């Protein structure tokens, strides 16, 4: 299948500035973005559970170039959302997709292996992942170290593509029932507050969550850094960090495609996706809408209905 993907990319390459995919990183465990300019580059392409990063994040800054991008199902939704918001032009991007089998959460691998500083070898077959570090092989079930989002993945196949290679795969679930949120909400309000206070206290304000997000596109004009308006101060307290997360989540309302990059990029593993998922659920319940499925749709917060279907008029 990978060979077929490589062939397809090689065929399309002459028409393109370059194609983005994943290649082997500094060791066997860490796949890294690969920019393919020449057919030889395409031979370095890899595909599998280590293709974690969402390459769509690069697209808005590449406007004006004609580029190819290899996508997993979730990545393709980011591309669709970018198209929808006209942050990317359809005739400037060529999308290569295959069916995704799920990706790995490296934090979970680290919990099992210990130091994953330099991994010698990684093998995956039959739902198992074997990671060899310091001469020691560690075997684990893929499903135990899988990214949480893959457990409720509804779109393993690219929702939009110019070249789809291989067979489609059945989704993990039909509906996302937001079990993680329900579990969180089984706690009291006080417990929830304490949870965020603790988590936000650890935040470094490095903004990796923002920078990794394919749909956080204001970059240099982010309100988190602007002095006018001055939404968050330079203080290192919880208040400003929490406010920043609320800003990120609010700005993603109706746009977040649940790709999980924000959470993956966080160096201290703060579960920032939870907040975004609560917006996703609200948007889904109120407008029966999922972001990034239809490149022609209008995001619900940029529209209205005089008589809303699911918003009750206030009784008081």
């Amino acid at each position: 299948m990978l060979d077929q993907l490589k062939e397809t990319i090689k065929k399309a390459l002459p028409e393109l500035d370059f194609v983005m995919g994943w290649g082997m990183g500094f060791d066997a465990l860490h796949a890294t973005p690969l920019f393919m300019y020449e057919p030889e580059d395409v031979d370095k392409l890899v595909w599998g559970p280590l293709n974690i990063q969402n390459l769509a994040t690069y697209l808005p800054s590449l406007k004006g170039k004609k580029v190819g991008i290899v996508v997993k199902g979730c990545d393709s939704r980011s591309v669709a959302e970018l198209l929808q918001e006209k942050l990317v032009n359809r005739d400037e991007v060529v999308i290569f997709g295959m069916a995704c089998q799920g990706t790995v959460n490296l934090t979970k691998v680290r919990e099992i292996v210990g130091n994953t500083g330099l991994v010698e070898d990684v093998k995956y077959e039959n739902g198992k992942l074997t990671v060899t570090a310091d001469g020691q092989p560690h075997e684990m079930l893929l499903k135990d170290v899988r990214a949480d989002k893959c457990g409720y993945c509804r779109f393993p196949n690219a929702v939009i593509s110019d070249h789809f290679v291989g067979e489609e795969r059945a989704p993990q679930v039909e509906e996302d029932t937001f079990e993680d949120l329900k579990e969180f909400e089984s706690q009291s309000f006080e417990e929830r507050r304490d949870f965020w206070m603790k988590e936000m206290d650890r935040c470094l304000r490095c903004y990796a969550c923002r920078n990794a997000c394919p749909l956080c596109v204001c970059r240099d004009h982010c309100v988190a850094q602007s002095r006018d308006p001055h939404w968050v101060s330079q203080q290192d307290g919880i208040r400003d960090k929490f406010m920043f997360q609320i800003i990120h989540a609010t700005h993603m309302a109706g746009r977040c495609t649940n790709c999980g990059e924000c959470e993956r990029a966080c160096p201290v593993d703060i579960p920032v996706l939870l907040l975004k998922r609560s917006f996703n659920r609200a948007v889904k319940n109120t407008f029966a809408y999922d972001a990034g499925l239809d490149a022609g749709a209008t995001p619900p917060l940029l529209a209205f209905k005089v008589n809303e279907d699911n918003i009750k008029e206030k009784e008081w």
Partner: protein
Amino acid sequence: MPVLEGRELRIVGFLCNWCSYGGADTAGVARFEQPTDLRVIRVPCSGRIDPLFVAKAFMNGADGVLVSGCHPRDCHYAEGNFYARRRLEVFKNVISVLGIEPERFEYTWVSASEGQRWQEVVTKFTKQVHALGPMVSVPEVSLDRLAALEPAQS
């Protein structure tokens, strides 16, 4: 004389210039008795109200936030409140995940002539917030520093 006995809470009200601010004014002119916890911020239109205003108010220690605009179809700018309605509804849906009781935030519509209605809204909302009591404030400093500061304060 406050309608509610005891300590006042900090309630922030964002009112649109054309309807709800007028409605509150009407209530005042008619001398309708109202609780005095609400601090009003007048904005040009409910469409101007970014849900982040509400978040920021809570972060800075508000115990409750009330947003009020013109009734749907009555917006001075024709459709500002329709956009506001969607944003505020979504925001109301998510604040419980932040650890804020959803009853601490309401949005509603009051027209300039509805002094009576304003009195009801503000009284009901204030009661609702009082039932929950004050919000635990979000520390401006890190938890370590807060712990170090605390003995000095008591």
